[in-house]
């Protein structure tokens, strides 16, 4: 698609053209080199500590030695809570916006714009909100539940907007065909539109997972700092990202494990990302779509 819309500009030109081309390549290689430098640094310092015991053991001496097992469990619990709350609500809101309100009408436009504003709220502000509402007002205290609910609020707009976009991209022919068969709009959404949009829904879901796993600021004062194995979702727990922060800022001598934990976090994100691409590829092929 990109190659057809791309206009081939003339490459010949005077000295000025050559200089601009050189500058373009220099800037691009600078950006690429910095990025490769960051990832390389992470792998270089982190790979040494990466062994099975690091994933399976509890942290010792405030995280300087030992592993990250309870932290992984806390992270996954926060993720599960956030997704369990945000996904059903997000899916319902997306369907409501794309297929149960007038296209381009005031409702869809106002709600959509408001969600875009919500998506731009800084994560630390979600932390303040979560601390006031879930920890304070609802009486959950510093807990995995409070952290998960805070992050559910944070990923909700991303989920809604991506799922909505994928539902909208389903051609109207499907809707007309369903209508001509006399089945209800509800039924048509459930059996025709949702399966057809499943790849896009998975992408939105994974974007949300990525945001949750990477988030730190919103968790500092909602799920807390405790680094032992959580006894339940009302217990306080430390996410992997908070662990990295604590090790690198507050624990002298924690750097080596901070690097290894970062490597685990980035590895998880890349793995999920890669798996999504494969899933989408397979889904699109399976449904015989031409995109």
């Amino acid at each position, binding site marked *: 698609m990109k*190659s057809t*819309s*791309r*206009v081939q*500009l003339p490459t010949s*030109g005077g000295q*000025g*053209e050559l200089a*601009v081309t050189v500058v*373009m390549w220099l*800037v*691009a290689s600078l*950006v*690429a080199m*910095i*990025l490769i*430098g*960051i*990832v390389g*640094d992470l792998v270089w*310092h982190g790979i040494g500590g990466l062994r099975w015991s690091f994933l399976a053991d509890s942290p010792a001496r405030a995280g300087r030695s030992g592993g990250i097992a309870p932290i992984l469990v806390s992270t996954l619990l926060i993720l599960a809570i956030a997704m369990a709350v945000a996904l059903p609500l997000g899916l*319902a*809101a*997306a*369907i*409501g*916006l794309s*297929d149960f*309100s007038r296209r381009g009408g005031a*409702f869809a436009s*106002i*709600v959509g*714009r*408001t*969600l875009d*504003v*919500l998506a*731009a*709220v*800084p994560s*630390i*502000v979600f*932390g303040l909100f979560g601390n*006031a509402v879930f920890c304070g007002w609802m009486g959950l205290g510093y807990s995995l539940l409070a952290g998960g609910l805070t992050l559910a*609020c944070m990923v909700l*707009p991303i989920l809604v907007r991506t799922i909505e976009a994928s539902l909208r991209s389903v051609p109207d022919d499907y809707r*007309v065909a369903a209508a*001509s068969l006399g089945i*209800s*709009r*509800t039924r048509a959404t459930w059996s025709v539109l949702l399966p057809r949009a499943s790849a896009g829904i998975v992408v939105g879901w994974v974007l949300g997972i990525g945001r949750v796993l990477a988030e*730190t*600021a919103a968790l*500092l*004062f909602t799920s807390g700092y405790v680094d032992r194995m959580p006894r339940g979702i009302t217990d306080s727990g430390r996410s992997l*990202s908070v662990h990295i922060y604590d090790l690198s800022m507050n624990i002298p001598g924690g750097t080596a494990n901070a690097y290894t934990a*970062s490597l685990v*976090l980035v590895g998880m*994100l890349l793995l999920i*990302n890669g798996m999504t691409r494969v899933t989408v590829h397979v889904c699109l092929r399976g449904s015989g779509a031409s995109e």
Partner: protein
Amino acid sequence: MIWFGSWHLFRPNLDAQVGSGLRLAAIAASSLVLLIVSFLAHESWPAISSLGSRMVTDASWHPSAKASEGTFGMWPIVVGTLVVTGGAVMLASPLGVVSAVFAEFYAPPHVAVMFRGLIELLAGIPSVVFGLWGLMVLAPLIARVSPPGQSLLAGVVIVTLMILPTVMLVTGSALESVPRERVRGAVALGMGRFAVIRHVVIPGARAGIVTGMLLGATRAMGETMAVLMVCGNVVKIPRGVFDPVRTLTANMALEMGYALDLHRSALYTSGLALLVTSMGLVACAQWLGRES
């Protein structure tokens, strides 16, 4: 259009009920914004009513739970946020626009794909990991020139890297949306590559580029962890790029854990200010997007 023309073809009862349930979900999701604003306003009220403008005019930031005992001047912290954000936007905008132009017009197709992939990778790196890199690599590097290394400069560089993907991706889609006929026409007139880009493509994509900058600024202002880790967090108006600074976000992250009463409320006030400013920036970006 067609969809709504055929509304009557469906069984009305079930659909009406399901529809109102789903629309209710959409309303619930978007009314979170109101909920956030009102909870933050509620928590900020004690500070706003009893401190008021003291939060900006007090000489220093030595907060305490009582109004009479502490000083609540957040002005140096506000300045910290403004210079980090401004610096990052000033660096990331040209870099992002050049990167987008590179990927769109200069790179051979496979290089463009690889470059976009790298930028997406950059966008996916968590804030704490940027912070770790800044703390371990960038700050020591800066410290060689002028200690302590954890400084405004380190913060600006890190935040620049973090908002670069936003600026580049938004600019890229704006460049793509410039009508191809216009570009082809310019080429047919014999304009060189850079001339076409400078006089046809960039002016056509101006609204999109500004949108990218605004969204980048929003991200920069709200960025917490990386800034907290590399900026040094000293509450003082910086005299130069090597001075440490503290931003509003870092201030909240550092002090929320132990702040009580009025101190806590003052932190919520700074959060509210941040929230309102980013909402304003996004509204501007949306308005610009509508113009184009």
